[in-house]
């Protein structure tokens, strides 16, 4: 009966099974309900006059709003930069065997994590009310240089100090967690090779800690993008404050808030994509193959074949990244 038993040379493929697949009526019902709800929501959004979509569009093109986006981005980038650099320094201090360093770092984190960032922002802004001048000189002795605090710390700098120094405290704990997640054998191997503490940290421990550090840092960046809106209390005209100024003048609160929310959503979306690529970069060596980028996935979808399984020799996007 079986063709192969009779020694037939050309192999005969078995008839593919034609079975009735399992039906999922629940899914169809669920999909219809969700579609109806979505349609209702869209309808409500578009046709409710309270949203005033023409005002939304108009607001999105407003010059002060566009300028506000610039300030928001600037604040986010600079304060995160302060946060990351400060966080790494604090984390290393915290883990240092030197009690003076670890104690100082502990105290810093205690203060800056333990008080509201809103209070810190106001504090930096009104530093001039506490100390009118800042000066450099011999402690309790003569001064060589002195400057008015308000001139030295304008509003933008105050905002940056408030956000950045606060962020450093949070980043310190994230970086510390990352450093401690690296196997102790790695430090030992590096020390056994004669590498110094600094070189071990820079070349061996931190690159591996990055895998643990990057996801929460992405989270922090997205959070920071929105936290910058708090600088409204010191009247720095970033995106939220710009919007606030408009609706307190025109009383078109909802459309203005919708307009700036669209911008916030747009910026966080871009950051999310960036985070994906950074995580992918630091995954090298940890996974045998890297997951395809969304772009590669999209391309393979249209090419009609599975996304490329990256072999060990070629890691797309990393060809320049230190291969032989």
């Amino acid at each position: 009966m079986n063709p192969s038993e009779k020694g037939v040379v050309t192999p005969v493929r078995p008839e593919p099974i034609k079975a009735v697949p399992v039906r999922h009526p629940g899914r169809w019902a669920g999909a219809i309900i969700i579609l109806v709800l979505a349609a209702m929501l869209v309808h409500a959004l578009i046709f409710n006059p309270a949203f005033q979509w023409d005002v939304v569009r108009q607001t999105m093109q407003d010059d002060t709003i566009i300028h506000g986006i610039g300030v928001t981005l600037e604040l986010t980038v600079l304060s995160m930069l302060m946060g990351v650099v400060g966080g790494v320094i604090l984390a290393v201090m915290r883990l240092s065997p030197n009690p003076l360093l670890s104690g100082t770092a502990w105290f810093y984190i205690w203060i800056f994590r333990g008080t509201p960032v809103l209070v810190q922002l106001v504090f930096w802004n009104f530093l001039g009310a506490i100390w009118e001048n800042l000066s450099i000189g011999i402690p309790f002795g003569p001064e060589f240089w002195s400057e008015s605090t308000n001139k030295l710390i304008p509003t933008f700098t105050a905002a940056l100090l408030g956000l950045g120094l606060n962020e450093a405290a949070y980043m310190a704990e994230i970086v510390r967690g990352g450093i401690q997640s690296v196997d102790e054998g790695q430090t030992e191997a590096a020390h056994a090779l004669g590498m110094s503490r600094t070189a071990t940290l820079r070349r061996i421990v931190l690159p591996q800690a990055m895998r643990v550090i990057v996801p929460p840092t992405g989270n922090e960046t997205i959070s920071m993008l929105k936290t910058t809106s708090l600088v409204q209390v010191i009247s720095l005209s970033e995106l939220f404050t710009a919007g606030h100024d408009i609706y307190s003048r025109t009383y078109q609160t909802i459309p203005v808030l919708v307009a700036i929310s669209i911008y916030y959503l747009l910026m966080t979306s871009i950051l999310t994509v960036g985070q994906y690529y950074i995580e992918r970069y630091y995954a090298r060596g940890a996974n045998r193959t890297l997951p395809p980028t969304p772009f590669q996935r999209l391309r393979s979808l249209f090419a009609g074949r599975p996304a490329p399984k990256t072999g060990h020799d070629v890691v797309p996007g990393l060809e320049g990244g230190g291969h032989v």
Partner: protein
Amino acid sequence: MTDLTKTPRDAASAEPMVKAEGVHKSYGLVEVLKGIDLEVRQSEVFCLVGPSGSGKSTFLRCINHLEKINGGRLWVDGELVGYRQKGDRLHELKDREVALKRRDIGMVFQRFNLFPHMTAVENVMEAPVQVKRENKAAARERSMALLERVGLADKAGNYPSQLSGGQQQRVAIARALAMKPKLMLFDEPTSALDPELVGEVLDVMRGLAEEGMTMIVVTHEMGFAREVGDALVFMDGGVVVESGNPREVLTNPQHARTRAFLSKVL
């Protein structure tokens, strides 16, 4: 196994490579090493065997100062480990000075401890470039030669996660050799390997021994100790129970504890 399998070594340079006198080590109240005395001569393959918890790995880690000793004296190549003697007082060495001495001592770990974010060749060239400030291209070339020597030239671009255990351990040996050490420490180098992968690592170590490298090997591979070893020490409970020529100790142990241990592992 007979003595014929061993190549004779030029035995006696006057200075021993490693010398231990009454080495003590304790963690809190737990005394792990209770006075170790031994000498490892130049070009010798020195095997440390014993049950787990006997302190053999701890002693090995004292030699490159990964562990600080609490008592006794330990010399490598005539110099005190971890201390400098001024008059009759000992001064602790700075981190930088300790690192400087570790350059000359290669170490191979039970769990390989390759750097997972670097390819095989990057692992090997890391220390020469970072520690000795060697030219990158030259270091890479030398590292490729070392990988060739452990039979892994074709895996140079692979990350550790893409290598088998045996291959990882051979890369780890190449990495240690890249610093041109005068002494190699092996901490149970084959204990984490699948049985069929043990041979390839032991072959590399045998090759090193034949070239005259001084090696201290903590191992459970009695076949290797008998065949390649020049000296063997059996440790138990933080003390040296028995020592001598591996072929004699392993075939004709003098102490009951040695016999009990060997009857379980042989």
